[in-house]
């Protein structure tokens, strides 16, 4: 009953004309960048972050949230029509979506992707609404040692985003921690890693690193080749986008599977929507009566991953909004946005800013309806974006990046830093270093160091305070488990090899 009251309050915030407009702008931009291959929500949110500084935080979060979940809707269009994922989470959709398009069923594939996204996206918002407030209440008992444990756990789980090499992910995270500690130490006013440059005394602006590593790194990576890919024809007329009754019947389980799997994987920091969509696709194939047909263009192969990557967004917002722990690069940027707007993400945030949390939740219900409308009848129109030449798109991204950084600080030094971080982002991609752990390290580094130093002040330098309190001890034990489990696994594999 209490939740319903808060939700109604949230709708009161979300349906104000300005917030509706921001929600629509966010969903629209999200769909556009989801469709554009090579430009993800993290890069877009980073680029637009400076423009939100003059906005009301609730409206800004509603817009950035719209970009985040809207991009998941748009990503399927490119997967189905181009066989290129518009967004990393839509990789799995290529498998059956593109095959359906090749068979002349692009319309129903796009339609079922939008319907699955809507159902699962809405499920994700319900989950967020029901789980976040009690979790935040539980976390109110946390003190500095628990926060340190929580952040260590968040960083360790972020390393799960590692891709192939956990060592590289950890190194990227440590570089993030190093960048976070640049500038003046808040406890003692000591200058750290400023290289004698007075412009470094305030540290490196998060916006500069995020835009450089994500936006410029991504665009520079895409500039390796000169031309794009050929697109399959887009069905004309919205009636051709409607899936058949049989399609809907075939997807019943896929809708449930995508929603549940996507949401719960989203809640786990570090797992991410790409993993959610792979697992959901795997489950769908495993329980299917015709698993051999997966990969040849079955409609469930589109519904399950598309549902999962949309439900995941609701789940991923749970640890970010309640504990201040981002689970991915995009939620790390959203978390940094909250800090830059002067808010304190953590257990008290929902209690202290009910209009922000419940306004966001309500806007997500509205946004999912907007996205269904944008992605069903209007998808042929959106698909035309894919015809936009890259030689126009990329200069625009470079321009927005420069303007975004310069408008934050009016400093040419920061634009130089942007150039440096753009190169770093490209090199990281090229050398297979994941960029998300770097951003997680950067966002959490400062708070983590503060929590550690406050904990040790509480115990007068005795490190045992971190393991003598049950919650922090559990979190640090889980952190160690995550970090060392792969080593045990490897050692075991070597042992077995040596025996045989």
């Amino acid at each position, binding site marked *: 009953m209490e939740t319903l009251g808060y939700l109604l309050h949230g709708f009161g915030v979300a349906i104000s004309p300005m917030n509706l407009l921001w929600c629509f702008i966010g969903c629209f931009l999200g769909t556009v960048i989801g469709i554009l291959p090579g430009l993800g929500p993290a890069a877009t949110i980073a680029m637009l972050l400076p423009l939100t500084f003059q906005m009301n935080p609730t409206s800004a979060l509603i817009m950035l949230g719209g970009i985040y979940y809207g991009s998941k809707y748009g990503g399927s269009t490119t997967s189905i029509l181009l066989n290129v994922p518009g967004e990393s989470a839509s990789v799995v959709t290529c498998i059956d979506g593109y095959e359906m398009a090749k068979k002349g069923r692009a319309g129903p594939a796009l339609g079922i992707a939008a319907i699955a996204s809507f159902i699962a996206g809405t499920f994700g918002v319900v989950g967020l609404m029901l789980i976040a407030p009690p979790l935040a209440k539980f976390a109110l008992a946390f003190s500095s040692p628990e926060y340190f444990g929580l952040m260590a756990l968040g960083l360790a789980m972020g390393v799960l985003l590692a891709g192939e090499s956990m060592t590289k992910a950890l190194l990227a995270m440590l570089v993030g921690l190093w960048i976070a500690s640049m500038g003046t130490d808040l406890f003692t006013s000591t200058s750290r890693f400023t290289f004698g440059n007075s412009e470094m005394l305030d540290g490196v602006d998060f916006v500069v690193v995020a835009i450089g590593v994500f936006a410029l790194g991504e665009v*520079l990576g895409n*500039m390796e080749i000169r031309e794009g890919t050929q697109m399959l024809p887009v069905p004309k007329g919205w009636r051709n986008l409607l899936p058949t009754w049989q399609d809907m019947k075939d997807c019943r389980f896929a809708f449930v599977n995508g929603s549940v799997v996507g949401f719960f994987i989203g809640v786990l920091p570090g797992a991410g929507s790409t993993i959610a969509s792979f697992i959901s696709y795997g489950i769908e194939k495993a329980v299917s009566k015709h698993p051999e047909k997966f990969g040849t263009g079955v409609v469930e192969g589109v519904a399950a991953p598309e549902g999962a990557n949309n439900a995941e967004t609701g789940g991923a917002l749970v640890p970010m909004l309640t504990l201040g722990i981002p689970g991915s690069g995009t939620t790390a940027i959203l978390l940094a946005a909250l800090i830059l707007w002067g808010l304190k993400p953590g257990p008290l945030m929902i209690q202290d800013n009910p209009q922000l949390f419940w306004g966001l939740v309500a806007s997500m219900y509205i946004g999912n309806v907007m996205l269904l409308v944008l992605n069903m009848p209007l998808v042929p129109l959106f698909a035309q974006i894919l015809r936009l030449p890259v*030689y126009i798109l990329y200069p625009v991204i470079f321009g927005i990046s420069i303007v975004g950084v310069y408008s934050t600080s009016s400093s040419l030094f920061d634009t130089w830093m942007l150039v440096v971080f753009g*190169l770093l982002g490209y090199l990281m991609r090229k050398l297979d270093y994941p960029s998300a752990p770097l951003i997680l390290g950067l966002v959490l580094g400062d708070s983590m160091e503060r929590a550690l130093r406050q904990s040790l*002040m509480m115990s007068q*330098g005795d490190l045992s305070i971190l393991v003598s309190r049950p919650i922090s001890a559990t979190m640090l034990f889980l952190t160690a488990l995550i970090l060392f489990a792969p080593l045990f696994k490897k050692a075991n594999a070597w042992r077995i090899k040596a025996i045989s």
Partner: protein
Amino acid sequence: MLRIGRLAPAVQEEGDIKIGDIVSGAVLAGLGVFIIVEARGWEYIGPDGPGPGFFPLWYGIAMVALSVLLVGVSLAQGAAVPGKPVNWREVGRVMMAWAGLALCVGLLKVLGFALAFGLFTFFLVAVMYRRPLGTAIAVAVGTSVTFYLLFPLALNVELPIGKLGF
């Protein structure tokens, strides 16, 4: 054609080494050593608890340890694990675009955003994407003018102004 982080095929016969991992590992190890040296210059534990050198010292040590591990594993794997091919022509394209961006940022103070960005866009369209001069000029002028109209005029966002006053 070379391989990512690898030597040319002729050298690979002598020992297949992941050059990319080794070079990046060595750079990060160097960074770790630098962090440790700097951190040792700051207070480790003071009367009020850990000082500014406490946290950097530990992540510096972790960085050195992980970098050494990365280099060691790459050397140990040698030719056993094949690497991805790298196309130096593609890398060259990116480096050219990046150098263009750096030049654009360097010219912001002298030429202002509109002109410097216009020249950079022209370079991307005409040189990087080999479009006709007319197209390159149209795109460069179009994007510069749109940015100028949108940011300083419509949104009141400050952009770098050059010696020419815009």
